[in-house]
């Protein structure tokens, strides 16, 4: 973080962005978008046994305006796609997205007419978690990777939207 102590321990210098990012990564508020079985593993990760609170992410927000991490845990069908897109758009910048599980990442086992073949067709995704469902450890690992992105000031929502992502009318 580039923290330096000068004159004994009376003064600390650091880059403001580093300090802000450090505070941000230690208090990520997730929005739980649990639509299927993966949602159960996400709940387990948030509950006392695995306890996401250790990483500062216990304040689960059910309003997208108060959340900065979208965890999409489950199958997203075409009918749900506009809702997901809208939730993402309603989250304020900066924001990060985890696609949890095979369904959210690529449609999973559902190669059919109802299921979106990966949420990255609708919204930018920062981190994909493999598994059907991923274990809580896998979700926590991806979470710490997201924290790494936050600390270094990276994230797809901070870049201009990639050309390839089509916008869905909401």
């Amino acid at each position, binding site marked *: 973080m580039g923290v330096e102590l000068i004159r004994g321990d009376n003064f600390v210098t650091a880059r403001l962005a580093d300090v802000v990012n450090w505070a941000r990564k230690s208090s990520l508020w997730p929005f739980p978008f649990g639509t299927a079985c993966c949602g159960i593993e996400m709940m387990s990760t948030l509950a006392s046994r695995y306890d996401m609170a250790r990483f500062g992410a216990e304040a689960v927000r059910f309003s997208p305006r108060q959340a900065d991490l979208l965890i999409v845990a489950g199958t997203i069908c*075409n*009918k749900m796609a506009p809702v997901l897109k809208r939730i993402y758009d309603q989250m304020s910048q900066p924001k990060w997205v985890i696609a949890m599980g095979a369904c959210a990442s690529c449609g999973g086992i559902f*190669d*059919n*007419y*109802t299921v979106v*073949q990966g949420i990255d067709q609708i919204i930018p995704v920062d981190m994909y978690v493999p598994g059907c469902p991923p274990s809580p450890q896998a979700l926590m690992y991806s979470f710490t990777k997201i924290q790494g992105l936050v600390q270094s000031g990276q994230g797809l929502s901070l870049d201009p939207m990639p050309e390839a992502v089509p916008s869905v009318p909401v």
Partner: protein
Amino acid sequence: MNSAAISAKVAGAIPGACVEALEFQGQTTLQVRRESLKEVLAFLRDDPDILMNQLLDVTAVDYPARADRFDVVYILASIREDGLAPVRVRIKTRIPDGAALPSVTDLWRSADWGERECFDMFGIRFEGHPNLKRILNPDNFYGYPLRKTFPLRGERDPAFLEYKETEPA
């Protein structure tokens, strides 16, 4: 009451309505003519011995090669107050593509969503339904996915370009 008894009663009350009565693994199925479908269903509901006071589901089966393409299936149950075990019976009727059946929402309110699902998934129309529109697929969806002719991957399927449906009249 077994299938023979039920079909005998139905035949007595509405002659010619019942085409076939089947008993398989303790399940009773009556096949009825399309024209008398609603009459039969109303009779089964109101007859004091049969008393099918609950409609569990309305669904359909697609046989694309058949002239009367669809089997529409009504699953009825009688929840009895006299302590007897509930009796179930399935009513099947055949209809061709594009034809309509009378809605039974006025007999059982639970027919509402079942008929909408049938309409959504098979394109079978129910006349007199209060709100016959898609229930599971998005409103702008094209086609009837539980028909065997529907391409599995929908719009992503190359076969979708050739897939054509005549909208139910």
